[in-house]
Protein backbone atom coordinates (compact mmCIF):
# COMPACT_ATOMS: atom_id res chain seq x y z
CA UNK A 1 0.00 0.00 0.00
CA UNK A 2 1.25 3.48 -0.80
CA UNK A 3 0.31 6.99 0.14
CA UNK A 4 -1.78 7.64 -2.95
CA UNK A 5 -5.41 8.21 -2.21
CA UNK A 6 -7.15 5.55 -4.19
CA UNK A 7 -10.56 7.02 -3.50
CA UNK A 8 -13.32 8.86 -5.30
CA UNK A 9 -13.53 11.83 -2.99
CA UNK A 10 -12.41 11.18 0.58
CA UNK A 11 -8.94 12.66 1.07
CA UNK A 12 -8.78 14.04 -2.47
CA UNK A 13 -8.41 17.40 -0.82
CA UNK A 14 -5.84 17.03 1.93
CA UNK A 15 -4.96 19.89 4.26
CA UNK A 16 -1.77 19.02 6.10
CA UNK A 17 -0.62 20.83 9.20
CA UNK A 18 2.52 20.36 11.18
CA UNK A 19 0.84 21.43 14.38
CA UNK A 20 -2.79 22.02 15.35
CA UNK A 21 -4.78 22.26 18.56
CA UNK A 22 -7.23 19.77 17.15
CA UNK A 23 -8.16 18.77 13.61
CA UNK A 24 -11.87 18.98 14.49
CA UNK A 25 -11.43 22.54 15.76
CA UNK A 26 -9.53 23.46 12.61
CA UNK A 27 -12.31 21.97 10.50
CA UNK A 28 -14.83 24.10 12.41
CA UNK A 29 -12.79 27.25 11.83
CA UNK A 30 -12.35 26.57 8.13
CA UNK A 31 -16.04 25.75 7.65
CA UNK A 32 -16.94 29.13 9.14
CA UNK A 33 -14.85 30.83 6.46
CA UNK A 34 -15.63 28.81 3.39
CA UNK A 35 -17.21 25.67 2.05
CA UNK A 36 -14.92 22.65 2.06
CA UNK A 37 -15.14 19.93 -0.57
CA UNK A 38 -16.99 16.76 0.38
CA UNK A 39 -14.35 14.37 1.74
CA UNK A 40 -11.74 17.00 2.62
CA UNK A 41 -9.24 15.54 5.09
CA UNK A 42 -7.36 17.60 7.64
CA UNK A 43 -4.18 16.01 8.96
CA UNK A 44 -2.07 17.21 11.88
CA UNK A 45 1.25 15.60 12.73
CA UNK A 46 1.23 17.17 16.14
CA UNK A 47 -2.17 17.64 17.74
CA UNK A 48 -1.64 19.28 21.11
CA UNK A 49 -5.21 19.67 22.32
CA UNK A 50 -7.14 16.77 20.87
CA UNK A 51 -10.76 16.39 21.77
CA UNK A 52 -12.54 13.31 22.96
CA UNK A 53 -15.88 12.73 24.60
CA UNK A 54 -17.36 15.91 26.16
CA UNK A 55 -14.73 17.25 28.53
CA UNK A 56 -12.26 14.47 27.80
CA UNK A 57 -9.08 14.93 25.85
CA UNK A 58 -7.50 12.78 23.22
CA UNK A 59 -3.79 12.54 24.00
CA UNK A 60 -1.67 11.83 21.01
CA UNK A 61 2.09 11.73 21.00
CA UNK A 62 3.52 14.10 18.37
CA UNK A 63 4.54 12.70 15.00
CA UNK A 64 3.73 9.14 15.99
CA UNK A 65 -0.01 8.82 15.56
CA UNK A 66 -2.71 9.62 13.06
CA UNK A 67 -5.03 12.48 13.97
CA UNK A 68 -7.34 13.53 11.20
CA UNK A 69 -10.76 14.98 10.51
CA UNK A 70 -12.79 14.30 7.41
CA UNK A 71 -15.54 16.64 6.27
CA UNK A 72 -18.66 14.97 4.90
CA UNK A 73 -22.10 16.12 3.87
CA UNK A 74 -24.27 13.08 4.53
CA UNK A 75 -27.80 13.59 3.34
CA UNK A 76 -29.38 11.12 5.69
CA UNK A 77 -32.71 11.25 7.43
CA UNK A 78 -31.99 13.03 10.70
CA UNK A 79 -32.30 11.92 13.45
CA UNK A 80 -33.73 8.57 12.35
CA UNK A 81 -30.68 7.39 10.47
CA UNK A 82 -27.95 9.28 12.21
CA UNK A 83 -26.62 6.28 14.09
CA UNK A 84 -25.89 4.56 10.78
CA UNK A 85 -23.35 7.30 10.14
CA UNK A 86 -21.69 6.35 13.40
CA UNK A 87 -21.73 2.67 12.43
CA UNK A 88 -20.41 3.26 8.91
CA UNK A 89 -17.50 5.38 10.14
CA UNK A 90 -16.69 2.91 12.92
CA UNK A 91 -16.59 0.07 10.38
CA UNK A 92 -14.32 2.11 8.12
CA UNK A 93 -11.84 2.77 10.92
CA UNK A 94 -12.06 -0.87 11.99
CA UNK A 95 -11.33 -2.10 8.46
CA UNK A 96 -8.35 0.23 8.21
CA UNK A 97 -6.77 -1.17 11.38
CA UNK A 98 -7.71 -4.71 10.33
CA UNK A 99 -5.47 -4.18 7.29
CA UNK A 100 -2.52 -4.65 9.68
CA UNK A 101 -3.99 -6.37 12.72
CA UNK A 102 -6.37 -9.15 13.70
CA UNK A 103 -8.94 -9.23 16.47
CA UNK A 104 -10.20 -5.69 15.76
CA UNK A 105 -13.59 -4.77 17.25
CA UNK A 106 -15.98 -1.88 17.53
CA UNK A 107 -16.81 -1.12 21.12
CA UNK A 108 -20.23 0.46 21.42
CA UNK A 109 -20.86 3.07 20.35
CA UNK A 110 -17.74 3.80 18.29
CA UNK A 111 -14.37 3.05 19.88
CA UNK A 112 -12.02 0.64 18.16
CA UNK A 113 -10.43 -2.11 20.21
CA UNK A 114 -7.71 -4.62 19.46
CA UNK A 115 -7.96 -7.54 21.81
CA UNK A 116 -9.08 -5.79 24.97
CA UNK A 117 -7.29 -2.51 24.33
CA UNK A 118 -8.37 0.76 22.77
CA UNK A 119 -6.48 1.61 19.61
CA UNK A 120 -8.62 4.29 17.98
CA UNK A 121 -11.31 6.81 18.81
CA UNK A 122 -13.90 8.65 16.76
CA UNK A 123 -15.54 11.99 17.44
CA UNK A 124 -18.28 13.05 15.06
CA UNK A 125 -19.69 16.58 15.13
CA UNK A 126 -22.77 17.29 13.07
CA UNK A 127 -24.09 20.75 12.38
CA UNK A 128 -27.87 20.64 12.48
CA UNK A 129 -29.59 23.14 10.25
CA UNK A 130 -33.35 23.05 9.92
CA UNK A 131 -33.41 19.53 11.36
CA UNK A 132 -30.94 18.19 8.79
CA UNK A 133 -27.25 17.49 8.95
CA UNK A 134 -25.45 20.38 7.28
CA UNK A 135 -21.96 19.00 7.56
CA UNK A 136 -20.28 16.27 9.59
CA UNK A 137 -16.79 16.61 10.96
CA UNK A 138 -15.53 13.08 11.45
CA UNK A 139 -12.53 13.15 13.77
CA UNK A 140 -10.46 9.99 13.94
CA UNK A 141 -7.47 9.30 16.16
CA UNK A 142 -5.50 6.09 15.61
CA UNK A 143 -2.54 5.09 17.75
CA UNK A 144 -0.07 4.13 15.06
CA UNK A 145 3.58 4.24 16.15
CA UNK A 146 3.36 5.03 19.84
CA UNK A 147 5.54 2.62 21.82
CA UNK A 148 4.60 3.59 25.34
CA UNK A 149 1.52 4.96 27.02
CA UNK A 150 1.37 6.94 30.25
CA UNK A 151 -0.29 5.17 33.14
CA UNK A 152 -3.81 5.94 34.20
CA UNK A 153 -5.46 6.49 30.84
CA UNK A 154 -7.11 3.15 30.43
CA UNK A 155 -5.40 0.44 28.48
CA UNK A 156 -4.52 1.78 25.06
CA UNK A 157 -2.36 0.11 22.47
CA UNK A 158 -1.01 0.98 19.03
CA UNK A 159 -0.60 -0.65 15.65
CA UNK A 160 3.15 -0.61 16.35
CA UNK A 161 2.82 -2.55 19.61
CA UNK A 162 0.44 -5.11 18.12
CA UNK A 163 2.25 -5.47 14.81
CA UNK A 164 5.73 -6.66 15.80
CA UNK A 165 7.01 -3.11 16.37
CA UNK A 166 6.93 -2.13 12.73
CA UNK A 167 6.83 1.62 12.20
CA UNK A 168 4.24 2.75 9.64
CA UNK A 169 4.13 5.90 7.53
CA UNK A 170 1.27 8.05 8.86
CA UNK A 171 0.25 9.00 5.33
CA UNK A 172 -0.01 5.36 4.35
CA UNK A 173 -2.38 4.79 7.25
CA UNK A 174 -4.34 7.89 6.26
CA UNK A 175 -4.66 6.70 2.66
CA UNK A 176 -5.92 3.35 3.91
CA UNK A 177 -8.32 5.05 6.32
CA UNK A 178 -9.79 7.29 3.61
CA UNK A 179 -10.35 4.34 1.33
CA UNK A 180 -11.93 2.20 4.09
CA UNK A 181 -14.20 5.01 5.31
CA UNK A 182 -15.23 5.76 1.74
CA UNK A 183 -16.27 2.15 1.19
CA UNK A 184 -18.67 2.26 4.14
CA UNK A 185 -19.76 5.82 3.54
CA UNK A 186 -20.82 4.86 0.00
CA UNK A 187 -22.95 2.08 1.46
CA UNK A 188 -24.54 4.64 3.74
CA UNK A 189 -25.23 6.92 0.78
CA UNK A 190 -26.73 3.98 -1.11
CA UNK A 191 -29.03 3.26 1.81
CA UNK A 192 -27.54 -0.17 2.57
CA UNK A 193 -28.46 0.16 6.22
CA UNK A 194 -29.08 -3.56 6.71
CA UNK A 195 -25.56 -4.43 5.61
CA UNK A 196 -24.01 -1.69 7.77
CA UNK A 197 -26.02 -2.83 10.77
CA UNK A 198 -25.26 -6.49 10.22
CA UNK A 199 -21.48 -6.04 9.87
CA UNK A 200 -21.45 -3.61 12.80
CA UNK A 201 -22.96 -6.37 14.94
CA UNK A 202 -20.53 -8.92 13.56
CA UNK A 203 -17.67 -6.83 14.96
CA UNK A 204 -19.43 -5.55 18.06
CA UNK A 205 -17.05 -5.93 20.99
CA UNK A 206 -18.26 -8.33 23.72
CA UNK A 207 -21.55 -9.06 21.97
CA UNK A 208 -23.14 -12.17 23.42
CA UNK A 209 -20.48 -12.56 26.10
CA UNK A 210 -21.77 -12.48 29.68
CA UNK A 211 -19.70 -10.14 31.82
CA UNK A 212 -19.89 -7.44 34.45
CA UNK A 213 -21.18 -3.97 33.69
CA UNK A 214 -21.51 -0.91 35.83
CA UNK A 215 -24.38 1.57 35.83
CA UNK A 216 -23.83 5.31 36.17
CA UNK A 217 -25.18 4.90 39.73
CA UNK A 218 -22.26 2.61 40.56
CA UNK A 219 -24.32 -0.58 40.72
CA UNK A 220 -22.62 -3.57 39.15
CA UNK A 221 -24.57 -6.26 37.35
CA UNK A 222 -24.05 -9.27 35.14
CA UNK A 223 -25.25 -8.76 31.60
CA UNK A 224 -24.80 -9.62 27.98
CA UNK A 225 -24.95 -7.37 24.92
CA UNK A 226 -27.79 -8.46 22.65
CA UNK A 227 -27.69 -5.75 20.02
CA UNK A 228 -27.55 -2.06 19.29
CA UNK A 229 -30.93 -0.56 18.42
CA UNK A 230 -31.34 1.58 15.27
CA UNK A 231 -31.27 4.74 17.40
CA UNK A 232 -27.95 3.67 18.92
CA UNK A 233 -29.09 2.49 22.32
CA UNK A 234 -27.56 -0.69 23.68
CA UNK A 235 -29.87 -3.61 24.36
CA UNK A 236 -28.69 -6.01 27.03
CA UNK A 237 -30.07 -9.13 28.60
CA UNK A 238 -29.89 -8.93 32.36
CA UNK A 239 -31.49 -10.82 35.24
CA UNK A 240 -34.35 -8.34 34.88
CA UNK A 241 -34.85 -9.27 31.24
CA UNK A 242 -34.00 -7.05 28.29
CA UNK A 243 -32.91 -3.54 29.14
CA UNK A 244 -31.77 -0.66 26.97
CA UNK A 245 -29.11 1.89 27.78
CA UNK A 246 -27.98 5.23 26.48
CA UNK A 247 -24.30 6.04 26.14
CA UNK A 248 -22.73 6.87 29.53
CA UNK A 249 -25.50 5.09 31.44
CA UNK A 250 -23.42 1.98 31.45
CA UNK A 251 -19.76 0.95 31.26
CA UNK A 252 -17.77 -2.25 31.04
CA UNK A 253 -15.67 -3.01 34.09
Amino acid at each position, binding site marked *: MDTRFNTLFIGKVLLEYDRLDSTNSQAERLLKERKLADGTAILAYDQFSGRGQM*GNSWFSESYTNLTTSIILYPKID*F*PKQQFYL*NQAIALGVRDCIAYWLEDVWVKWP*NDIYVGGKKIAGI*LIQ*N*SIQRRQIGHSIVGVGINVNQGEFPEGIGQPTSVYLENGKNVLDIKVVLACLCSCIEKWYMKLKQGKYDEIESVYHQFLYMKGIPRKYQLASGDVFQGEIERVLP*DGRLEMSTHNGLQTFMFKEISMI
Partner: protein
Amino acid sequence: MEFKDIQELVKLINKSNLSEFIMQDGDFKLTVRTKNYIKGKMKAMEPQVVPVPQPQVVPVSHVPAPVPVQPQAAAPVPQAPKTSAKDAPVKSEETDDTANYLEVKSPIVGTFYRSPSPDKPVYAKVGDTVSKGDVVCIVEAMKLFNEIESEVSGKIVKVMTEDASPVEYDQVLFLVDPKG
Protein backbone atom coordinates in the same frame (compact mmCIF):
# COMPACT_ATOMS: atom_id res chain seq x y z
CA MET B 1 -51.96 19.53 32.25
CA GLU B 2 -48.61 18.76 30.74
CA PHE B 3 -46.15 21.43 29.63
CA LYS B 4 -46.57 20.07 26.10
CA ASP B 5 -50.35 20.62 26.25
CA ILE B 6 -49.80 24.20 27.29
CA GLN B 7 -47.42 24.69 24.39
CA GLU B 8 -50.02 23.28 22.03
CA LEU B 9 -52.69 25.47 23.54
CA VAL B 10 -50.56 28.61 23.21
CA LYS B 11 -49.98 27.78 19.56
CA LEU B 12 -53.71 27.42 18.93
CA ILE B 13 -54.48 30.63 20.75
CA ASN B 14 -51.84 32.43 18.73
CA LYS B 15 -53.42 31.27 15.51
CA SER B 16 -56.88 32.41 16.60
CA ASN B 17 -58.17 35.97 17.01
CA LEU B 18 -58.39 35.58 20.75
CA SER B 19 -57.11 38.43 22.84
CA GLU B 20 -57.27 36.61 26.13
CA PHE B 21 -57.79 33.02 27.13
CA ILE B 22 -58.44 31.84 30.65
CA MET B 23 -59.09 28.30 31.69
CA GLN B 24 -59.55 26.68 35.03
CA ASP B 25 -59.33 23.01 35.86
CA GLY B 26 -59.59 22.45 39.59
CA ASP B 27 -56.73 24.34 41.26
CA PHE B 28 -55.03 24.89 37.95
CA LYS B 29 -55.68 28.23 36.28
CA LEU B 30 -54.12 29.39 33.07
CA THR B 31 -54.32 32.88 31.59
CA VAL B 32 -52.92 33.64 28.16
CA ARG B 33 -53.00 37.09 26.63
CA THR B 34 -52.12 37.64 23.00
CA LYS B 35 -50.93 40.72 21.17
CA ASN B 36 -54.61 41.51 20.51
CA TYR B 37 -55.03 42.08 24.20
CA ILE B 38 -55.38 45.72 25.16
CA LYS B 39 -55.13 46.48 28.82
CA GLY B 40 -57.78 49.16 29.30
CA LYS B 41 -60.46 47.66 27.10
CA MET B 42 -60.21 44.17 28.47
CA LYS B 43 -60.16 45.35 32.05
CA ALA B 44 -63.65 46.69 31.64
CA MET B 45 -64.84 43.21 30.84
CA GLU B 46 -65.14 40.37 33.27
CA PRO B 47 -62.66 37.71 32.19
CA GLN B 48 -64.43 34.56 31.13
CA VAL B 49 -63.61 31.55 33.18
CA VAL B 50 -64.22 28.54 31.03
CA PRO B 51 -64.05 25.24 32.86
CA VAL B 52 -62.18 22.85 30.64
CA PRO B 53 -61.87 19.28 31.80
CA GLN B 54 -59.81 18.05 28.83
CA PRO B 55 -57.38 20.49 27.28
CA GLN B 56 -57.21 18.65 23.96
CA VAL B 57 -60.90 19.21 23.27
CA VAL B 58 -60.68 22.99 23.54
CA PRO B 59 -62.13 24.05 20.19
CA VAL B 60 -59.96 27.16 20.03
CA SER B 61 -58.75 26.45 16.54
CA HIS B 62 -62.25 26.31 15.15
CA VAL B 63 -63.59 29.55 16.53
CA PRO B 64 -62.68 32.85 14.95
CA ALA B 65 -63.56 34.85 18.08
CA PRO B 66 -64.23 33.99 21.71
CA VAL B 67 -67.51 32.14 22.09
CA PRO B 68 -69.57 33.68 24.82
CA VAL B 69 -70.61 30.97 27.23
CA GLN B 70 -72.18 33.19 29.88
CA PRO B 71 -75.13 35.51 29.42
CA GLN B 72 -73.36 38.75 30.32
CA ALA B 73 -70.88 38.16 27.54
CA ALA B 74 -73.58 38.00 24.91
CA ALA B 75 -72.79 41.59 24.02
CA PRO B 76 -70.18 41.96 21.29
CA VAL B 77 -66.77 41.21 22.65
CA PRO B 78 -64.73 44.40 22.61
CA GLN B 79 -61.99 42.87 20.57
CA ALA B 80 -59.16 45.01 19.36
CA PRO B 81 -58.92 44.88 15.58
CA LYS B 82 -55.80 43.02 14.53
CA THR B 83 -54.45 45.83 12.41
CA SER B 84 -54.56 48.44 15.12
CA ALA B 85 -52.79 46.11 17.52
CA LYS B 86 -50.05 45.65 14.97
CA ASP B 87 -49.83 49.33 14.15
CA ALA B 88 -49.68 50.43 17.73
CA PRO B 89 -48.22 47.65 19.83
CA VAL B 90 -48.58 48.22 23.53
CA LYS B 91 -44.97 48.33 24.67
CA SER B 92 -45.69 47.84 28.33
CA GLU B 93 -47.34 44.53 27.59
CA GLU B 94 -44.32 43.01 25.94
CA THR B 95 -42.55 41.93 29.10
CA ASP B 96 -45.14 39.33 30.05
CA ASP B 97 -46.04 38.60 26.47
CA THR B 98 -44.27 35.25 26.33
CA ALA B 99 -46.68 33.94 23.69
CA ASN B 100 -44.74 35.88 21.09
CA TYR B 101 -41.43 34.30 21.96
CA LEU B 102 -39.97 31.86 19.50
CA GLU B 103 -38.66 28.49 20.59
CA VAL B 104 -35.47 26.64 19.84
CA LYS B 105 -36.35 22.98 20.23
CA SER B 106 -34.29 19.82 20.38
CA PRO B 107 -34.45 17.88 17.12
CA ILE B 108 -33.36 14.71 18.89
CA VAL B 109 -33.34 12.74 22.15
CA GLY B 110 -29.99 13.23 23.84
CA THR B 111 -27.95 15.25 26.30
CA PHE B 112 -28.02 19.03 26.18
CA TYR B 113 -24.74 20.91 26.39
CA ARG B 114 -24.43 24.66 26.42
CA SER B 115 -20.74 24.78 25.55
CA PRO B 116 -18.42 22.79 23.27
CA SER B 117 -16.57 21.54 26.35
CA PRO B 118 -16.79 22.31 30.06
CA ASP B 119 -13.83 24.74 29.98
CA LYS B 120 -15.22 26.73 27.06
CA PRO B 121 -17.75 29.58 27.26
CA VAL B 122 -21.40 28.79 26.54
CA TYR B 123 -22.67 29.19 22.98
CA ALA B 124 -25.56 31.40 24.01
CA LYS B 125 -26.78 32.97 27.24
CA VAL B 126 -29.73 35.09 28.27
CA GLY B 127 -29.45 38.53 26.69
CA ASP B 128 -27.39 37.34 23.74
CA THR B 129 -28.65 38.13 20.29
CA VAL B 130 -28.66 35.11 18.01
CA SER B 131 -29.13 35.01 14.28
CA LYS B 132 -30.59 32.24 12.22
CA GLY B 133 -27.79 29.71 11.70
CA ASP B 134 -25.85 30.48 14.88
CA VAL B 135 -24.93 27.44 16.96
CA VAL B 136 -26.78 27.73 20.28
CA CYS B 137 -26.00 24.38 21.90
CA ILE B 138 -24.99 20.77 21.43
CA VAL B 139 -27.31 17.81 21.81
CA GLU B 140 -25.23 14.67 22.11
CA ALA B 141 -26.70 11.30 21.29
CA MET B 142 -24.65 8.12 21.44
CA LYS B 143 -21.42 10.09 21.06
CA LEU B 144 -22.64 12.00 18.03
CA PHE B 145 -22.29 15.67 18.81
CA ASN B 146 -25.04 17.62 17.12
CA GLU B 147 -24.44 21.34 17.06
CA ILE B 148 -27.89 22.88 16.93
CA GLU B 149 -28.20 25.97 14.81
CA SER B 150 -30.95 28.41 15.67
CA GLU B 151 -33.80 28.53 13.16
CA VAL B 152 -34.84 31.92 14.49
CA SER B 153 -33.28 35.31 15.12
CA GLY B 154 -33.70 37.41 18.22
CA LYS B 155 -32.64 37.83 21.80
CA ILE B 156 -32.38 34.84 24.15
CA VAL B 157 -34.80 35.48 26.98
CA LYS B 158 -34.68 32.12 28.68
CA VAL B 159 -32.61 28.95 28.76
CA MET B 160 -35.17 26.23 29.41
CA THR B 161 -32.85 23.30 30.13
CA GLU B 162 -29.98 22.69 32.53
CA ASP B 163 -26.53 22.09 31.08
CA ALA B 164 -25.62 18.40 30.69
CA SER B 165 -29.18 17.21 31.30
CA PRO B 166 -31.20 14.80 29.15
CA VAL B 167 -33.63 16.27 26.63
CA GLU B 168 -36.54 14.79 24.75
CA TYR B 169 -37.49 15.18 21.11
CA ASP B 170 -39.02 18.64 20.55
CA GLN B 171 -38.25 19.79 24.07
CA VAL B 172 -37.91 23.57 24.23
CA LEU B 173 -34.28 24.56 24.85
CA PHE B 174 -34.38 28.34 24.48
CA LEU B 175 -36.98 31.07 24.30
CA VAL B 176 -36.09 33.81 21.85
CA ASP B 177 -37.68 37.22 21.60
CA PRO B 178 -37.80 38.03 17.89
CA LYS B 179 -38.14 41.74 18.67
CA GLY B 180 -34.98 41.70 20.79
